[in-house]
């Protein structure tokens, strides 16, 4: 396989680390040396030629080639089997509705949340249960990290360069999880998008830091979900009033209460949609009175419609916990779900 990237030489493993750190090519953690053999293995697994154009960065028109994605994926610790997810995630981020440049340059400092659905979760041995928003497993950790290294190296999204984040958050190191589809009767996030369960998908969303909630003192769906809605309302008061894709993570203990009462994801979304909204005047309660103006009675919903809520079943088996993951700029940047390893421009597969 003919690779075209510039070759650097280093005396040993430690010298590689210093070389890459000195060029600003890392996130501060050690990297796996991207040798030609390791990079070629990723590309071969995905059946991609090195010069395959994955897409153009929409503002600076910078071409994004498969070879560069593979180099960064190897650096992040990806195995070849992880690489198709990385390619699909980058492709999803390049869709216009994601607003890639704004999302990666904004002072708002969001991360890119990745959610995996379908068979790929099992093929990559992901863990959607214990510590799911932390270092839950190898695959999701390295895939999330690969995405960040790609932004850093291929698009110069370094702090102080393209990345103008005031704060950022820890999800900007890696922010990837899989949904717990096997211990859960609900439709998966992919199935909610009418994608069959047999197909693997990745969903990307511009995401603030997770806000953890707890309600272990009821089994009533309305009371459990009121806690989630209140956390969303708090985000609307304290951070941004704009509607968009909120994600909520519902761990097993709370999920079982909802499911025992017969609530589907659609029911959950409808309830949250109705409850997660605030009056503009509430901003005055939190020190933002100067921008209420004459619109105090205006009601702002957290979502433009119930289907903007991404409901993700994940988390360890015990504990009445959940999380709200707020959007970056919800009314301008939208979550994108794409199949992994499928051709977007191709017709249906031929009948055998």
């Amino acid at each position, binding site marked *: 396989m003919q*690779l075209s*990237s*510039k*070759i*650097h*030489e*280093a*005396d*040993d*493993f430690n*010298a*590689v680390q210093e*070389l*890459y750190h000195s*060029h600003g*090519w890392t996130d501060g953690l050690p990297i796996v*040396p*991207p*040798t*030609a053999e390791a*990079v070629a293995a990723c590309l071969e697994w995905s059946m991609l030629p090195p010069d395959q154009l994955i897409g153009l960065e929409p*503002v*600076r*028109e*910078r*071409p994004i*080639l498969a070879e*560069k994605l593979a*180099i*960064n994926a190897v*650096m992040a610790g990806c195995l070849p089997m992880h690489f198709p997810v990385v390619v699909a995630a980058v492709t999803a981020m390049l869709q216009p509705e994601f*607003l890639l*440049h*704004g*999302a990666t*340059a*904004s*002072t708002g400092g969001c991360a890119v949340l990745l959610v995996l659905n379908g068979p790929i979760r099992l093929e990559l041995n992901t863990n959607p249960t214990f510590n799911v928003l932390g270092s839950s497993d190898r695959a999701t950790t390295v895939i999330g990290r690969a995405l960040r*290294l790609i932004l850093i*190296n*291929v*698009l*110069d999204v370094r702090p102080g360069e393209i990345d*103008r984040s005031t704060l950022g958050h820890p999800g900007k190191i890696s922010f990837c999880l899989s949904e717990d589809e096997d211990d859960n009767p609900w439709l998966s996030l992919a199935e909610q998008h009418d994608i069959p369960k047999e197909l693997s998908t990745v969903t990307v969303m511009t995401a603030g830091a997770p806000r953890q909630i707890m309600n272990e003192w009821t089994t009533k769906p309305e009371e459990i979900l009121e806690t989630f809605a209140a956390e969303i309302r708090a985000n609307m008061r304290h951070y941004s009033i704009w509607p968009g894709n909120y994600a909520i993570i519902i761990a097993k203990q709370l999920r079982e209460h909802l499911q025992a009462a017969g609530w589907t994801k659609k029911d959950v979304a409808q309830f949250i949609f109705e409850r997660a909204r605030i009056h503009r005047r509430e901003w005055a309660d939190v020190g933002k009175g100067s*921008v209420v103006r004459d619109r105090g009675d205006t009601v702002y919903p957290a979502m433009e419609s119930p289907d903007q809520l991404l409901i993700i079943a994940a988390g360890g088996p015990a504990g009445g916990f959940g999380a709200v993951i707020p959007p970056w*700029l919800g009314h*301008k*940047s939208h979550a994108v779900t794409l199949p992994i390893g499928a051709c977007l421009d191709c017709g249906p597969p031929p009948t055998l």
Partner: protein
Amino acid sequence: MTLQVLDPSSEAHVAIGELAPRLTSLTGKTVGFISNGKEGTKGFFHHAETMLREEFGVAEVLLRVKSNYSAPADDYIAEEIAQWDVVISGLGD
């Protein structure tokens, strides 16, 4: 043992435009502001307009506000730029 490793950076140099020739004077010129529309821009551009008119003799100052502060300027703004002598834009909050 020497390791050979690959460059992870873009290495792609895409020319998407070049800077217009620099002006030697602003006197009598038309200056356009491209604002991202955020709250803090109002006072900033008002003050900048005053300075340009009173201290630099600028003839006309135009303000255009992007419809999305996190996206490139709208097409109609990009087309209008051709009529201006100077464009002031940039990142800000």
